[in-house]
Structure formats: C-alpha cells, structure tokens
C-alpha cells in the first residue's frame, strides 16, 4: 500500500522484471541488419530543480516508424526538443549516421536532416501552398522570385513523395487540416530529411484523415526515412509503428517491438504499475447507489474533438471515478458537466429536470462545483489572500452587491483553515506563498463553502504530499456520507479504487466502460479497460501472467 502512495516522481521501476522485457527488444528483426541512423545515448537534461530526462536512450533505424510512449510529463517533448536543438542536453551523446552531432538550434537540426512537424500546424494559412513550402528558402532567378519553378517543384514534391495531387497555388486555408499537416510534412522534407518527428499529428484529424496520413507515413517509410511518432492513441500506435520506446518520469523504461508488447503491459509500463502487484490490492467494499436519488444524468453528451458522446449517471452521495490515461478525455468530460466548455449535443438532467449548463455560473447555481487540475492557471487567484480565495465562488453566487461582511469572511476562512488543516493558518496570507497542497486545500474550501450537490475534483491529489493526499481522500468519503456526490478524476488507479463507488473508464476521448466497484474489481481490470483491445487481451492473458511471474 505504502508504495502506491508515493508521488509518481519518486517511483522506481524496480518491480518491473528487466529480464523479460529485454528479451522482447529487437528479437531477430530485419531492422537489426541495418546500422541505426540515429542513436541517442544516456541523455540527461536538468532544469533548475527538476531532472527532466535521466539517462534516456533512443535508437532509430532507417525505414521504421518509432513510437515515443509515455504519459504527459514523461519527458517525450523534452527528448524531442533536445533532438531538434530547442534544448541542449547536459550528459549523453547523439550520433547521426555514426557521427556525433550536437544541434544548438532548430535550424541546425534541420540542416542535419532532423525535421519536426508539430501538433499545431505552424504554417501560414493565409499564404498559398507553394509559398508555405518555400518560405525562407525561395528560389531566385535573376534577383527575382521564380514562382514558376517553385510551383513546379512543390507540385512534384507533393506528388512523388506524398502521393498528393492538389492545386498548389491555392491558399493553404482552403485545404483540410489533414492536407495542411501533409504540406507541413512536405515542407520539412524539402531539406533532405533523414529523421522526421511527428508530434501528435493525429490529434485534430478524423478517421479518414488519419488513414490518409498513415498512407503518407507508409510511403515515407519505404523511402527509408526514420519516423518518430508521438500519439496518445493506442490504436494508432499499434497500427502504424514498428517499435516503441517508453519513458516515464523522465526515465527510460524500455524499447520494444510494437507487435510483441501487449497493450496492457504497455500501459502498465507507461504508468509504472506492475501487473503482478495490481491483482492483489486490497480495496473498499462496493456499495450500490441505484436506490439513491439520481442527481445528474448525462445522455449522449459530446463535444467534437474533445469527447465522444457519453452517458453518465451520478447518484446522490455517490463517488464516481474517472479513470483513463492522461489525455484520454477525462478533463474534457468534466468540463462539459461544469459548463466550462459547451457541449455540442446531448442533454444533462439534474434531479430529473433537463438543464442547460452553458457557463460555470449556471452550473454553480445548479449546485455543481469544479476543482480544476490546473491549479495555477485555472484555480488560484495568486495575488489575493487565502480568505479572498475561499469566499470567491460564494461571493460569485451572491452577486455584486450582497457583499459578505469582512467579519463573516474571516469566520468562514478560519473555519475551513481549521477543517482542512491549511498551513499557514492566517487568512490574510497571499495564496501564492502557500505550498501546492495547501493551495489545493484552499481551492477545495472555495467549493465546499458553496455547499455543492456535485463536487468535481480533477486530480486533486496530484503533486501534493502523502499527508495532504490522505486528508483529501478522507474528506471525500465523509462528504459522500453526508450526501454529496463526487466526480473524482485521478491518474492513480489505486486511489480511484479505494475511494470510488463506480468507475467510468475513458480511452481515446471516449467513455469505454463503466465498472461498479465491487470487492473483486482490481487495478488490473481497470487497466485492461484503459488499454482496450479486449479480445486479444483474453487470449494472451496467461502469457502476460507468465511473463510477469518470471
């Protein structure tokens, strides 16, 4: 139990059997006959106070698609930035085609043959396709721009490399995001690229567009390019990549053939929970809330690009957990229930009555509270005091003129400082001077003061110490006993299992299952749902268990 309560930053991967995973690396693959095009070895990158990367390895072969896996904050972006010269590294080496290189700027990296296409297409939508491809390296003829030649070359480039036959003189904005993405790829191919990095290229594409992009990737692979593919979508990882490297908390976890690693195993490596251990976690006994009053009822609620239509019922006094990898759509779902984002379709009923949740104001007036995961940007008002931060939402419901007298404000603040053990216990202290855990408690207090019927907590225990964590979990349980419903989002499955009565599992921006939390439910069950691919899973279950036992 203890081990699980440690913040992820301190978790060591000792439990993972290195032997069994090493065997899966590059086992007699054709790729091994070739020399790697890029080898990153022992890369360490430290920011003041934080070790972003510790001894990380990455090996790329020509003609492979290599996935970089890990949760948000695992160090994927930092590694890419080191490779592309945005950051320098402290220790380690980078070898490109056998020669040590050290790109100091993105331009240098590009000239070396390392190109990147970022998540958001950073092209100019108000320029033509040709202009976008040639901007910064225009072809000149007698001191003037040679548009004819550039148009010809752009057309040829798109046709031969990407199988894309479009009118290149049209504005970029006249094409879909997928085409724009490909044009971005084409632009990066212009300079003779050897390594192409695609950072979340599919996040804003629909299924057809993804297929289109994958065809292009396959074509480039045949041309001998090494492609680094970063994505949150597990299905896509299994569809397009050949090998993958897993990072966690800035550490290198392993390198695997995609075909050889089970989804479940992959997920367990990403979040750092050993399968063997998962089966044995003790947990709270389940309790049915079916007979309780149905507080919130969501039907086919959806927002395009954020979360697929989902149904969700929350009963009075029930704690509903949202499990899923970071980026699986948990926050997006919660924001719809709070009116922080507007749903495209579907309906939400509160106490059986259909309601619109068009703004946080409305949601608050219907008794919903939302504690955001982004404490700094969406939670605290840094320049204000503890007292002001605590009474803010309550004053918000009362409006401009029903001012809560200062004396009453201090009483409220003192009450919650005592209840939640906020340190320092001085209501006039500025909140920005508090530690993360205490800021979190102040935000909790802000919502508890409004006495909500449904409290949405998005990662309330992340990045705070064990003591504060346990206090918050205890508080949740006692609130639920008093009849408050809670929607609890957490990356720590163990925590979800311990506190929640029902668990909704999300994967790839979709609610994939709902599990009544009974005694026999284990972390493994939740993780299977998070990882998906059930059918293959069952066939291979024994194999996994065997592998872990070794």
């Amino acid at each position, binding site marked *: 139990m203890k081990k699980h309560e440690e913040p992820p930053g301190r978790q060591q991967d000792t439990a993972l059997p290195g032997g069994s995973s090493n065997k899966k690396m590059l086992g007699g693959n054709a790729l091994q006959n070739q020399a790697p095009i890029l080898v990153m070895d022992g890369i360490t990158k430290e920011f003041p106070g*934080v070790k972003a990367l510790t001894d990380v390895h990455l090996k790329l072969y020509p003609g492979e698609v290599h996935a970089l896996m890990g949760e948000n904050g695992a160090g994927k972006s930092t590694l890419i930035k080191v490779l592309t010269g945005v950051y320098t590294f402290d220790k380690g080496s980078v070898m490109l085609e056998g020669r040590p290189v050290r790109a100091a700027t993105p331009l240098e990296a590009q000239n070396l043959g390392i190109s990147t296409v970022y998540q958001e297409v950073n092209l100019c939508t108000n320029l033509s396709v040709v202009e976008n491809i040639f901007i910064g390296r225009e072809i000149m003829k007698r001191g003037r721009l040679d548009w004819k030649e550039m148009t010809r070359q752009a057309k040829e480039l798109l046709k031969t490399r990407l199988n894309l036959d479009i009118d290149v003189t049209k504005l970029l904005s006249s094409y879909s995001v997928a085409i724009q993405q490909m044009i971005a790829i084409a632009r990066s191919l212009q300079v003779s690229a050897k390594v192409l990095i695609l950072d979340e290229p599919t996040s804003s594409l629909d299924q057809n567009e993804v297929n289109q992009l994958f065809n292009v990737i396959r074509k480039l692979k045949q041309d001998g390019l090494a492609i680094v593919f970063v994505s949150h979508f597990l299905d896509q990882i299994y569809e397009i990549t050949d090998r993958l490297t897993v990072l966690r908390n800035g550490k290198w976890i392993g390198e695997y053939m995609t075909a050889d690693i089970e989804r479940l195993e992959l997920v367990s490596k990403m979040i750092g929970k050993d399968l063997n251990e998962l089966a044995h976690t003790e947990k709270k006994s389940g309790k049915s809330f079916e007979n309780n009053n149905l507080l919130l009822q969501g039907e086919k609620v959806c927002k395009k690009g954020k979360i697929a239509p989902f149904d969700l019922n929350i009963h009075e006094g029930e704690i509903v957990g949202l499990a899923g990898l970071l980026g699986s759509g948990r926050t997006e779902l919660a924001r719809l229930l709070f009116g922080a984002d507007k749903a495209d379709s579907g309906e939400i009923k509160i106490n059986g009555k259909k309601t619109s949740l068009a703004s946080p104001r409305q949601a608050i007036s219907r008794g919903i509270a939302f504690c955001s995961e982004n404490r700094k940007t969406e939670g605290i*008002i840094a*320049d204000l005091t503890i007292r002001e931060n605590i009474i*803010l939402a309550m004053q918000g419901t009362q409006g401009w003129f029903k001012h809560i007298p200062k004396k009453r404000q201090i009483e409220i603040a003192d009450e919650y400082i005592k209840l939640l053990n906020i340190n320092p216990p001085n209501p006039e202290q500025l909140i920005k001077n508090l530690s993360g855990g205490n800021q979190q408690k102040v935000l909790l207090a802000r919502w508890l003061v409004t006495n909500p019927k449904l409290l949405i907590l998005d990662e309330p225990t992340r990045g705070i110490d064990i003591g504060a964590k346990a206090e918050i979990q205890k508080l949740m349980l006692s609130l639920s006993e008093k009849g408050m419903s809670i929607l609890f989002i957490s990356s720590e499955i163990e925590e979800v299992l311990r506190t929640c009565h029902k668990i909704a599992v999300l994967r790839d921006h979709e609610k994939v299952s709902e599990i009544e939390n009974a005694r026999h439910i284990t972390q493994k069950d939740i993780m299977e749902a998070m990882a998906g691919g059930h059918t293959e899973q069952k066939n291979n279950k024994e194999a996994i268990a065997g592998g872990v036992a070794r």
Partner: protein
Amino acid sequence: MKSKLFWPLMILVLILLINLFFDRSFFAIEVKNGYLTGSLVDILNRGAPLLLVAIGMTLVIATKGVDLGVGSVMAMAGAAGAMAVSGASEGGLVPLFTAIAFVIGISLLSGVWNGVLVSRIGVQPIVATLILMVAGRGIAQLITDGQIMTVYYEPYTFIGGGHLAMLPFSFFIVAAVLAIAAFMTRKTAVGLFIESVGTNPEASRLSGINSKNILLMVYIFSGLCAGIGGLILSSNVASADGNNAGLWYELDAILAVVIGGTSLNGGRFSLRGTVIGALIIQSLTTTIYSIGIAPEINLVVKAIVVLIVCLLQSAEFRKKVFGIFTIKRPEKKKEGVSLS
C-alpha cells in the same frame, strides 16, 4: 512591513519641499475674497480632472486593461457641455442641467462602446480604446466645428471655477467620485471581482464570476470619470477646444496609476495610491511652471522626474543602489520550467 504608499508619499513630499526652496510662501494658505487660496489649493483645483480620470483608470488597469480613450472623452464631454449652453447667456439653471445631462450621456456612451468592444467582442483593450482615442477627438472637433467654442453662461463656469465652503467646487466633485469608487470597491464585492478578474480571468470565470460585466462596468466608470473631468476642464476656462482639451491626459492618468502602485499586470489596485500619484504629476507640472523652467525643456524635466520616481518604486533598483550599504545575502535563482 513598509506600506506600499511609502515611496509615492515621500516623492510627493519631496516635490513640495523643492517648491518651498524656491518660494518661501509655497505652503501658505490665505483667505482671499472669502476663499482659501495658495499653491496647495491650486494644485488640488488644477489637478481635479487628472484625479478623476486616474481614479477611473485605476479600475480599468486593475482588470489588466487600459483606457486610452479618456483624453478624447474629456474633449467630447467638454464640447458637448459647451454646446448645450452655447446659446444661453443668462437665466435659470435649465441649460446647466442640460449640459450635465449631455456630458453624462456622451461619457456613458463612450464607456459602453469601449466596454462592449473589450468584454463582449474581445478586442484587446489597448486597441479597442485606441479607436475612441482617435475617433473621439474627431467627434469633439465636429461638435465645436473645429473652433474654440466660448461659453458666456455664468452657472456653467461654476463647476470648474466656483467655490463652496471656501474651497473650489471641483474639490467636492473629486471627493464624491472618490467616495463612490471607494465604497463600490471596498464595501461591495466589486473590488474583489475586479482584482480577481485582473489576476486570473480563467480561474475567475470557473469560480462563477461574470467577468464580462465587470469589464463592461470598469470601462463605463472610466468613461464617466473622464466625462466629468472634461466638464470641469471646459467649465474652468469657459470654453471648449476639441483639438487640445484633455490632450495626453490618458498618459498622465496611466502614469499616476502606476506611480500609485497599481501594476499594469492587473490585480491589486490602490485608489489611495492613485490619488497620491495624480497629485505627484500635478504638483510636478505646477512646479515646473512656478520655478520658471524654460518651456522648451520642461517636458524633458518632467520625463526625468518620472524616471526617477519609477526607479525608486522598483524594489530591484532600490536593492541595487541602497544595497551597497547593506550586507549582501546570496539570493536563490528562480527560473520557470515547464516539463512534458
């Protein structure tokens, strides 16, 4: 802990003391014709429009905005007021009330215009108010027909030039507006909401605060303050000048607010600080004229003094300069880093 107002106050005192050096009778206040007169009263009287504009500006800046349109609103309000009484020369108070109604009307309208652009349409404050800064002066010139419009109606000049209980009447206007602003921001929740929206608009929205209405309100209030300031200005000289009335007031007002300790980054604001800041600017202007600095260099002198004020306000600067005399302690480096 030393009050944030310590340095602004010191600077104000310093400027006043410099005056005393040149003019021994600077602090003297006499009763002439039944009114209090003297340099200090003068500063208060002449500074009234700036004080008003700066009070309005404080709330705008506290929401992380800025209102560049105030100078033009002053010109428009002065022109509208003068136009309303241009025909009248004698007789009842009706033209006066018409003038006041015109002034309030046009300043409210200006405030709503700015506020809607910023809060509802989402134009950046500096751009949104720049529109009125340019357009407003044009409108003022249209009203005055490009001429200086002279007023021959006695009651109109009372607002900016009259006296009440031995003090200039404008003093009471400022006091009233200041009292309203202080009441609104400290005795209702408006102050909390302004600071909250100015510090973190997204967190405020998620806390259920209607930040759009807060923004709209501060721009309307700023417009209103500027309008009244313009009326005082026009009344004081019994004329309206679409070209020059209220010229550069927006910059003086921003300066007053910043000197008073309200950050351009929004959040915490101090009305008291703003009053001191406005008084600093006004006494500086008065000083430059009274000690006879050549007009061609007085803008440079003003700039230098403002620079010194700003440097003194900076804790970093004070540490560097005065730190020579104190024991040095090693400081922790702070750097923001984002992972992922």
